[in-house]
């Protein structure tokens, strides 16, 4: 068994693609239409294009429990998932310049440094640096 894809529920796939590629710097890998309003849309890290893919999956807007779950996580400030970076402070400064909103500024937590931002598609995302 291998981990090839992790999914993030996004409220608007086109908006998410722009955010994850233009702001975060990921690269689009697969973009296949599934139905009239959804695509199998994945992005990868530019340094690891054969590594795990992030699936920007449409939020199940018509399934109430999932909608409630995503909103509750977001309102509580809890990250949906996290990405590793070399330097959280640098990444924070780069993303702030691009207009990204952070709910947790770079903070040391023992042996890691973390920060949390809004992906504009319904999720908080955490970036982590191992100290």
């Amino acid at each position, binding site marked *: 068994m291998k981990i090839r894809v992790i999914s993030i529920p996004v409220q608007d796939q086109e908006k998410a693609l722009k955010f994850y590629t233009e702001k975060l710097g990921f690269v689009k890998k697969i973009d296949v239409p599934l139905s009239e309003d959804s695509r199998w849309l994945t992005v990868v890290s530019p340094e690891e294009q054969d590594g795990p893919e992030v699936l920007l999956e449409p939020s199940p807007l018509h399934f109430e429990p999932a909608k409630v779950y995503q909103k509750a996580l977001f309102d*509580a400030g809890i990250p949906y998932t996290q990405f590793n970076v070399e330097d959280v402070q640098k990444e924070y400064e780069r993303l702030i310049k691009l207009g990204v909103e952070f709910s947790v500024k770079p903070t*040391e*937590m*023992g*042996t890691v440094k*973390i920060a949390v931002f809004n992906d504009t598609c319904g999720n908080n995302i955490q970036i982590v640096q191992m100290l």
Partner: protein
Amino acid sequence: MRCCNCKMIFDMSNMNIYLKEITRIKNKCFFNQGQLDTVIGTRHFINNNYDKQLNLDLLSHLRFTSKFHLIRLYKRYYGQTPGQYLIDRRLEKAKELLKEGQSVTETCFDIGFESPSSFSTLFKSKFGLTPTEFQKRAIFTKSDKEEF
């Protein structure tokens, strides 16, 4: 609320649930700055010297602690021993060098291993491919991409 590490005072009332929780965990689990300095310092030393002959005697001596205490602390904060981390660090570097086309033997010595055969065995147990197989696949994938 006062955080023991940084002596900052947090106003919890403006925090969301996650921020409150990480502040709570930080105060409860990461208050011992001396221990944190020891393990973080050890990790940085390994990152900068993984290609040299490192052993626990040296690592513990550098941090003025006993070998067993260092292993316990390191495992508590990073979830693996310094020895396991050193192997991971070396093997990650090996992957980079192999992708660049460096020979298996040269790679083995460059990352601090002494025996190419034990390096190959370890590499295979970690990644499921021998260094030679890994290199062939990496070079094939690269040329495949360039062709298209």
